[in-house]
């Protein structure tokens, strides 16, 4: 469902400042863990991952079965040669994910953030098809349609609703992520 109010502050990456340290991903995992501590999240809850280790396993369910869980970070550092940039959900005013969602599990909340009813997502991946920002990944640990093989739910940035500043921005050592109001989307002004 579309909400009526656009998000004011969003997370913007500054690629010239990114040093490819992946702290944003670590911070994100910890913030969305049960214990909200580094050691607790990685060693007790086993949210840890090794991206290289997981390479070659494209199905999160298979990775999970093999004891190599895919990361559940909601931001993602993209790299090529010497360039790196942390990307995540744009919390669009007219979200392609919500327009594609096949059962209304995705919605805009009263702050305009794109959120997920986690108990309603059926894992059809229409949102992954829709999102031009590549901001959505698959979480195989929650299954609402267990009869469907390789079921899971989608996973994307929620702007850390319990925090004033999202954790990725807070932990970034070089201020390569900023949380600010850059005005309204072009189409809103039209």
């Amino acid at each position: 469902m579309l909400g009526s109010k656009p998000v004011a502050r969003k997370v913007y990456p500054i690629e010239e400042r990114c040093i490819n340290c992946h702290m944003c991903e670590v911070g994100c995992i910890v913030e969305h863990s049960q214990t909200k501590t580094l050691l607790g999240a990685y060693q007790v809850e086993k949210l840890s991952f090794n991206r290289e280790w997981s390479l070659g396993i494209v199905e999160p369910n298979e990775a999970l079965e093999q004891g190599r869980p895919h990361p559940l970070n909601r931001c993602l550092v993209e790299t090529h040669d010497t360039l790196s940039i942390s990307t995540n959900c744009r919390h669009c005013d007219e979200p392609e994910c919500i327009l594609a969602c096949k059962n209304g599990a995705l919605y805009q909340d009263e702050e305009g953030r794109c959120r997920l009813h986690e108990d309603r997502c059926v894992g059809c991946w229409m949102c992954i098809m829709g999102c031009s920002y590549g901001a959505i990944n698959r979480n195989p640990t929650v299954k609402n349609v267990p009869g469907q093989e390789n079921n899971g739910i989608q996973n994307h940035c929620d702007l850390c609703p319990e925090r004033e500043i999202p954790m990725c921005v807070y932990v970034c050592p070089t201020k390569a992520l900023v949380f600010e109001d850059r005005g309204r989307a072009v189409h809103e002004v039209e």
Partner: protein
Amino acid sequence: MAGRARHYVLIGNSFAALFAAEAIRRLDREGPITFIAEEPEHTYSRALLHETLAGWAPDRVIWLRERDYYERISARPMLGRRVVEVRPRERRVVLADGESVSYDKLLISTGGAPFIPPGIDGIDRFEKVFTFTRLSDVRAIDAALEGVREVAILGQGLIGLQCAEGIAARGRKVTVVEIADDLLPFALDSNAAAIVRRELAREKIELVNCDTFAAVEGAGGKISSVLLKSGGRIPCQMVVIAVGVRPLVGLVEGSGIEVDRGIVVNERMETNVEGIYAAGDCAQGLELLSGRKLPLAVIPVASTMGMYAGYNMAGGRRTYPGSIPLNALQFGGIPIISYGYVRDEEGAEVFCHIDERQNVYKKAIIKDGKLRAVVLVKDIERAGIFRRLIEQQVDVSDCKEELMKPGFNFAFLQKDYRDRLFTQPQ
């Protein structure tokens, strides 16, 4: 419209109508909204019918919006009511029960109706012949499954194959017949189709191609078999016809509203009749790759057309940018996403990545340095990146070799493209 609030009437209760209502509410919090829909159910997802039939989907996931949705957006639902006529001069619609409803702005989003091909002898003589596009079809099939061991389905499109999966999950032997030589020819290329065929075989679903139903046979209202055009016979006790849907546009007959294959709309989703808009499977919007207007019966297109219709009905001025064909499917738990015309390789460069051990197949079709189509099997992570590259015809010649390889990402693309996406509000 000085003096009084605009009355918005939306015919339909699925994606296009819902997003139209929500867009209207962004611009107009006062004007009354009325939904009129033929089906009596609360708004539900047609894309979850087979999971429902299979018994996989819990009830909570099939409803598109909360129970108090209409109240929350101050709308009046008139469900289980069918519009039979649109009278533009009187600005009113007439319902099957004789009542009429007047409007200031009207949206037609009736969707599609299953097409029953002519020439299947005896099809109207049997009870257990079904189509599969509505929740009522699921309930009817569910109630009729008792005593059925074998089912014959006509049509290897998405509806036919999903129906097959749903019925197979209920332990029945299913055979799916298709006149074309391959399944899902619009969404999948032959390699991706081969992977789907293998998954369906694993689920014991039998596929017959280059053939069609000639007759439904049986006695006393009970089906015993289907006779194929080739002369073969499929023993079965139930038949499902799933050869496709056609835009449901009967209600505009005689209204002066222009209809081609679907209802013809301009870039604001308005028909040739002032104040009447159309969106979703019943309408034809711009398809970007061909540059033509045609019905694209997929959810994101219906939702987006509905949203643009809503803005314009409420006095906004928004131009629908158009869409490309796009699909997300899964069979046997293998996810597939495709964009564009995936079999059109003439005069194109084709780049593939195949990992047979992992069941991964990825293909990109590039013409003049621009991405025209993509198929992704199993490795669907971040597929949407390709959607925008195709829609905006971005030049990808300097990274075309990398596009389908594992690890391709935004850092391979031009900085100005990345900046457009990530440095300004969307």
